C-alpha cells in the first residue's frame, strides 16, 4: 500500500467502506500516526459533519470508530436500507443485562441472588444475542463462569466505554418510593403510635 498521510478524507473513506468498527490503533499504525492523531482527525470530521448538518455521525465504540446514519433519520433511511429489526428484549432480560453491565464480571448465581429467580435462560438469551459473553471463570470451587458485556453491547447502546454508563446510584429509587418500600415492610406502620415507637428503637 502506498503510504498516505492521515487526513480527514482518508479516515472518512476508511470508516465508510469498512462494515465493522475500525480500531484507532489500526488506522494509526497503518499511516505512521498516533492514536491521538486519529482522535484529532475524527474530531475534525465530526465538526465538519456538524457544520454542514450531515446525515452521518461518527461514534466511538471502545477503542474503535464507526460511522452511522443519524438516529433521527431512521424511519426514512430504514425504509431504503431495508434493515431488519431486532426483537425487543424482555424486562427480565434487560434487568439481567443491567446487573451484568454494572456488576461484571459476575456469575449466574450472583445475578439470581439479586433478582431472586433463576437466570439461566435469560443469560443464555443475552449470550445468543451477543450482548454478554463468558469472560472468565471464578477462582473458587466449581469455577463458575463469569459473565461480562461485549463490545457489541457497547456498540448497540452507542457508548464509547462502560465508564460512560450513568452511575448506578442515579437509578436508585427516589426517597418517596424507597420510603414506600420501607413503610410496607414495617410492622404496624399505619398505627402512628407504633410507628414512632419503631423509629425510636431504630
Amino acid at each position, binding site marked *: 500500500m502506498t503510504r498516505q498521510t492521515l487526513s480527514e478524507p482518508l479516515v472518512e473513506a476508511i*470508516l465508510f*467502506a*469498512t*462494515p465493522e468498527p475500525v480500531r484507532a490503533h489500526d488506522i494509526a499504525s497503518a499511516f505512521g500516526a498516533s492514536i491521538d492523531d486519529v482522535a484529532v482527525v475524527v474530531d475534525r470530521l465530526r465538526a465538519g459533519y456538524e457544520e454542514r448538518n450531515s446525515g452521518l*455521525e461518527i461514534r466511538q465504540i471502545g477503542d474503535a470508530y*464507526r*460511522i*452511522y*446514519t443519524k*438516529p*433521527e433519520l*431512521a424511519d426514512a433511511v*430504514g425504509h431504503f*436500507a431495508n434493515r431488519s*429489526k*431486532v426483537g425487543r*428484549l*424482555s*424486562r*427480565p432480560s*434487560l*434487568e439481567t*443485562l*443491567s*446487573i451484568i*453491565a*454494572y456488576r461484571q464480571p459476575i456469575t449466574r*448465581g450472583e445475578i*439470581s*441472588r*439479586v*433478582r*431472586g*429467580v*433463576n437466570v439461566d435462560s435469560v443469560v443464555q438469551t443475552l449470550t445468543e444475542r451477543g450482548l454478554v459473553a463468558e469472560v472468565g471463570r471464578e477462582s473458587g470451587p466449581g469455577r463458575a463462569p463469569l459473565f461480562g458485556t461485549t463490545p457489541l453491547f457497547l*456498540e*448497540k*447502546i*452507542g*457508548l464509547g466505554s462502560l465508564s460512560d454508563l450513568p452511575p*448506578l446510584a442515579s*437509578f*436508585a*429509587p427516589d426517597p418517596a418510593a*424507597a420510603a*414506600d*418500600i*420501607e*413503610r*410496607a*415492610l*414495617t*410492622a*404496624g*406502620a*399505619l398505627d402512628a403510635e407504633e410507628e414512632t*415507637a*419503631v423509629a425510636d*428503637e*431504630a
Partner: protein
Amino acid sequence: MSLHVYEGPFHLLLSLIADQRVDVCDIPIARLCEDYLARIDTMEKMDLEVTTEFLVVAATLLALKAKAILPRPGDDEVDEEEQFERDLLIARLLEVQTFRSAGEHLTALLEIGERRFPPKPATDDEALRALPVLADIAPADLARVLIDIVRDTMRTVDTSRIVVDQVSTQEAAIEIVRVLESGPVTFARVARERNLAWSVALFLAMLELTMRGEIELGEGTTVGELELRLAKAL
C-alpha cells in the same frame, strides 16, 4: 398485565407496594407462595439456590406480618435479628428496583442504537462472481468424501513397513486434468485404487484446481457423489 413469566418474589412484592398496599399486613404471603409453587411445578429441576432464597424472603415477611398482627406486650423490644432481616429485605428490594430502572435506561439506549445504521457490508455480486463456483456443495459434503476415501484406504494400509510415498499436489492436479479431458468423472472414480497418500493429494489437488477455476464441482448422479469437470473456457 401478566405475561406468565415468573419474576420472583421481589417482583411481586414491588408491584404490590407500587399498588399502594403499603402495610405488611396487606401483603398476601399466600399469594406469593402460590405463585412460587406454580413456578416450581413447571420447573424441570429444583434450583436449590433460588428455592431457599424464596424461603428466606417468605419467612421474613411472615415474621413481620405475625409481629404486626399480634398484640405487643407493653415495652416491646424489636428483635435485632428480625430488624436485620427486614433491613436486608428492604435493601434487596431497593437493589432490584435500581437495576430495573437501569434496565429501562438501557432499553432507551438500545432503541436509539437501533436507529443508527452503520455501513452495510456490500453483498456485492461482483465479489461473489469473483469466487470460484463450488456449485452447491457444502463443506460437510466435501469432508464426507474425504473421510470415505481415507477410511477405504486405511482398511488396506499395511503397517508392517512404512514407505514414504511422495506424491505432490501438482502431480495429482496433472492427473485430474488428464482424466477429466475425456469428460466429467466422479471423485471416487478418480481416486479409485489409489493409496492413501495419492487419495489425499488428489483431494487437495481437486480443491486447488477448483479454487483456480480450472475445474468445477457438482453433484454426481447419485447423492453424495462429487462430480468433477473441466471448467468451461471463458
